[in-house]
């Protein structure tokens, strides 16, 4: 969808439900992927994604291009803010943190299609993402799962675009190091060195 086309769709979406559906179709996969990764729990992610789009539906009448880099940045800012609220609400609600919430990437996949994807390597890779700094992890998730451009990530997080670029580059290089170490450890664990007499 070109930027011009998106502008037309957003304008129409203010009064035409079908146009809002086009925006939903365009951005649902990215919003879901980002939210699911950040929350880790499928049920929580589904609740939050519904909340995000309902919020967007309500707020689209107030959407102005003057204040937004793009529709994607606007949607992801809603997602980012709602996620922060979600954590605050959960913190109030929960007295204990479950293993799943604390280690979302280590949680077993729940559906067959995920089982296919979540092979050992992928599980390791996603687990290593949790070792990045919160900001690096957020930026990597917005870039690789949310498909946002650096300029859009900067708008969502209120950062300078160069800072986003630095975090992205350093975050992925760091992830690469962790990933290499983790996979090497795994290989070692599987094939322990034979004892030389």
């Amino acid at each position: 969808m070109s930027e011009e086309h998106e502008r037309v769709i957003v304008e129409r979406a203010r009064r035409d439900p079908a146009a809002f559906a086009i925006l939903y179709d365009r951005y649902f996969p990215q919003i879901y992927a980002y939210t699911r990764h950040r929350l880790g729990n499928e049920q929580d992610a589904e609740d939050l994604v519904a909340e995000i789009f309902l919020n967007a539906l309500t707020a689209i009448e107030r959407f102005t291009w003057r204040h937004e880099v793009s529709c994607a940045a606007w949607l992801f800012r809603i997602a980012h803010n709602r996620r922060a609220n979600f954590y605050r609400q959960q913190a109030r609600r929960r007295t204990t943190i479950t293993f799943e919430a604390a280690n979302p990437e280590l949680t077993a996949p729940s559906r067959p299609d995920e089982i296919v994807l979540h092979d050992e390597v992928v599980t390791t890779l996603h687990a290593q993402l949790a070792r990045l700094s919160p900001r690096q992890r957020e930026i990597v998730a917005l870039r690789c799962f949310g498909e946002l451009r650096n300029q859009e990530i900067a708008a969502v997080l209120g950062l300078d675009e160069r800072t986003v670029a630095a975090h992205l580059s350093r975050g992925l290089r760091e992830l690469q190091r962790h990933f290499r170490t983790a996979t090497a450890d795994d290989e070692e664990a599987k094939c322990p060195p034979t004892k030389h007499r």
Partner: protein
Amino acid sequence: MPADEAPMSAEEWAALDAIEATMAQPPGQTSPTDTNVGNLAALLRATAPRADEQYRRRLRAALITAATQRRIPAPRFSRRQLLAAGLTVATLGGAALGAPQARAALSAVLGGGSRTRTMTAPVVERGTRLPLDLTADPQYWVGPEQAQRAYFLTNIYRERWAQRQQLQRPPQAGAVVTLPNGAQLPIPVYLPDPFRWQGITATNQVNVPSEYITEKNGGGGGSGLPWERFPTYNNTIGTYLIGGDPNDHFIILQQFRVNPDEAIIVSIFQMLVPTTVPPMGSPKAPPAAGRYGERTTLGIIVEPARDDHIGIAVQTGPGTLHAITVAGTAAWQFGGIWTAEGQWLNDGTWRSLVWSRDGYLYCLSAETLTEAELLRVAASLPALP
């Protein structure tokens, strides 16, 4: 200076270039890069969590319904109008998101007389009808008060079972049929035996594929009756899926595109085919009761709504009307059907469900089926793509 804010090194710039090169490729078509960081970005992207498809569709439908309802101005009903129309019961339909509001609206309307409504389609409206005094000119319904109202009539003949056996392409259970008028009609997966889906027709007959039974090309005789002609009113909002059993009991699924600009009332009625044709050009044909006989026809009237009604209303007569859910979606159930004489016939034969989904209003009506069977048929509607 914090490490993250330090100027990027040459290696970090190279890594960033590799990441950008990877992300510039279309999703799903990422090819390996010549750097490990680029490949890592590609791997992350390819393993992004994916949603359950059923969940995605359900949320989409709920949002469309919510968007539709949000954009329909809230109609106001005066006490006079409420009294004139009998008791008007209205509620939101459809989306799970709207269900609590729907119940609130129902109790608000039932609890008092005149008040501002914030809820709109789908609407089930209790009212009274004038006799269907059909004249030679199908564009008008001439009532006793001499007021002419445009209406829209679709005749669906009862004797259909034999015709179905000749169909090359009867509607397939579980399919979603895209009609030339743009409507997408889902065919319920479940249908109690021995009922079968027999055909599809629409308010704009021109748009109906010829493979299906329509009034014009295979419904069963009688063409040439003056009131069988379709009005010039090009109403494309309604699509009808028709089924029946060997005894020609009906099951009919009406699908109406919810359009906030429309203000219409739909009514299902049954009447007998006239044995004598009213003379052409007769402005005042004999009363309905004196003209009809021999064979039963099911008709659907789509007419402009009265007063300040906005959206679609399914009109029912007096009798049972209660809130129910179709697969978790707020819905209405009522018994009975209009007759050509303007009477509400509620002898326990006809039962209907009204609900909305995917931006459409659905009304499923059947003879001889139990509420549980109707609900099961309604719940088996496949999701629209």
